[in-house]
């Protein structure tokens, strides 16, 4: 069943269109930077962008920082929101269930296909950004400076970029679980995706509010940009482990809710 879901994901034109769109924004940013040579000053604009002009191999990180706050979560919410509700809307859900595919199996297969989607999206964005970055800005000294001012070797950059890709993927799982849960509630993929997005927008808004400081450590977007800490020397693990823990809690809670709802639900579509 997992293989079937992956096949469905990969054969759907929309999957690739979404990834293409995700790729477009960082590429546009790179092109603009290369032609105008106007990098944001350190500490302003998206992270890593100021360093990119000197070393193109840092551009994958800048690209992740560009898509992470909005583009990537939207794509994840759409794909995860579509998972069950999309089948319900097309009417194929009832045929899958009488095939029979167990409801728990279906839910797990859907979750895995969403995770694979995130991973593909993040890897494609990072890979394209590497090619674009290196060809537009060159790699300079083959060495890069960390946020703390020390120097990283190319292999260190590579390793830490991989870690960052992993962390960004994990960061999206909370959104995925929320959208998947809403997808079992509603028969409309759009409603599920919008619901998950509303949750994220509320979370980002609360983060800017001093009065909401009590809530901050529990908001799903709180630790998203903590992958920057991977580029400090030494790596600051505190926020990263908290971010992973927080995502695990969101995934646990919403997946359980999705499972409880979906396995007891009457399928009337």
């Amino acid at each position, binding site marked *: *069943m997992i*293989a*079937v879901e992956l*096949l*469905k994901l990969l*054969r*759907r*034109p929309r999957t690739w269109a979404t990834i293409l769109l995700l790729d477009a924004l960082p590429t546009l940013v790179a092109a603009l930077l290369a032609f105008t040579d106007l990098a944001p000053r350190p500490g302003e604009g998206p992270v890593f962008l100021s360093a990119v002009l000197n070393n193109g191999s840092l551009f994958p990180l800048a690209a992740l920082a560009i898509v992470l706050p909005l583009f990537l979560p939207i794509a994840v919410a759409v794909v995860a929101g579509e998972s069950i509700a999309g089948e319900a809307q*097309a*009417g*194929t859900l*009832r*045929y*899958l*269930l*009488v*095939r*029979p*595919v*167990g409801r728990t199996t279906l839910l797990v297969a859907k979750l895995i296909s969403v995770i694979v989607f995130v991973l593909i999206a993040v890897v494609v964005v990072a890979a394209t950004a590497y090619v674009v970055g290196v060809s537009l800005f060159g790699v300079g000294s083959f060495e890069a400076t960390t946020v703390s001012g020390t120097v990283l070797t190319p292999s260190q950059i590579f390793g830490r970029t991989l870690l960052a890709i992993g962390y960004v993927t994990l960061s999206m799982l909370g959104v995925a679980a929320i959208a998947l849960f809403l997808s079992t509630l509603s028969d409309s993929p759009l409603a599920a995706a919008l619901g998950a997005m509303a949750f994220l927008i509320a979370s980002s808004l609360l983060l800017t509010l001093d009065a909401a400081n009590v809530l901050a450590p529990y908001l799903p977007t709180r630790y998203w940009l903590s992958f920057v800490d991977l580029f400090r020397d030494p790596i600051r693990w505190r926020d990263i482990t908290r971010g992973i823990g927080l995502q695990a809690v969101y995934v646990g809670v919403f997946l359980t809710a999705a499972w409880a709802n979906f396995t*007891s639900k*009457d*399928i*009337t579509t």
Partner: protein
Amino acid sequence: MIVTHALAKRYGQLHAVDGIDLDVREGDIYGFLGANGSGKTTTVRMLLGLVHATSGEIELLGQPMPSSARTVLPQVGALIEGPAAYGHLSGRANLLLFDAAGRGGSRRTRRTRVGDALEQVGLAGVGRRPVRNYSLGMRQRLGLAGALLRAPRLLILDEPTNGLDPQGIHEIRELLQSLHAQGTTVFLSSHLLAEIEQLCTRVGVLDRGRLVLQEQLADLQKPTGRTVVHTPDAEAARVLIGEGLIEVLDDGALVIASGDAPAVNRALVEAGIRVQELAPQRRSLEQVVLEAAGSSGDRSVR
């Protein structure tokens, strides 16, 4: 093949299905009749484990549902409230995915299985065009092919001829009859009386959630003990029969209170009355259903 005991589904105050005892036997073509909104679809969905029953028991192929869904459902083919497929894929690709989704069915024979099913419903030559460009009839055929994939022992079909033209309906009827001849039990839900009358061996009638009738079609349609006579000499016949005459129908035919058609014929002919047509009276399925069930289910009277 299908047995239910006091099967019921309530939505709040509404009794969508109200304690029905279905009994579909091996080798039946069972016609499940009912007006729109009478609970047919809810019943079908409960049989297949899509909707959870409020109370009552279901047995499919001798095993309890939905607890035995994993072993029972692979032997059941279903078409529920119209076909469904992924619009951007071809019919063949849809069936391949559908076949791969469930357990059972070896991977090596998958292509053959899908090819055979498409052949059976007359879609073998449809090629690679996506389902989104299919006509309603082609989608219906694809849905049927999906139901036939695993050569099921039991077919549960909800309105299988929906959207088909007369030739298509005829083809599907012949297909179902040949499957039945090979030993497949068919459970057919429909509101089209003519379809049921031509195809089924047994009927159940659902009216506002209650099973008001369940019998062999032949028993329902057995002679009523009266004879219908068409004759150009109606007046003379009326005088001759006298007491035995029940009524004169609109088209001039006479209904006679005797089931012995040969004797009636002889009496008429010996009296010099010309007989154009003479037959034992049988009730039509429509009459039976209208007598058993009340008004249309989606009619709501204040």
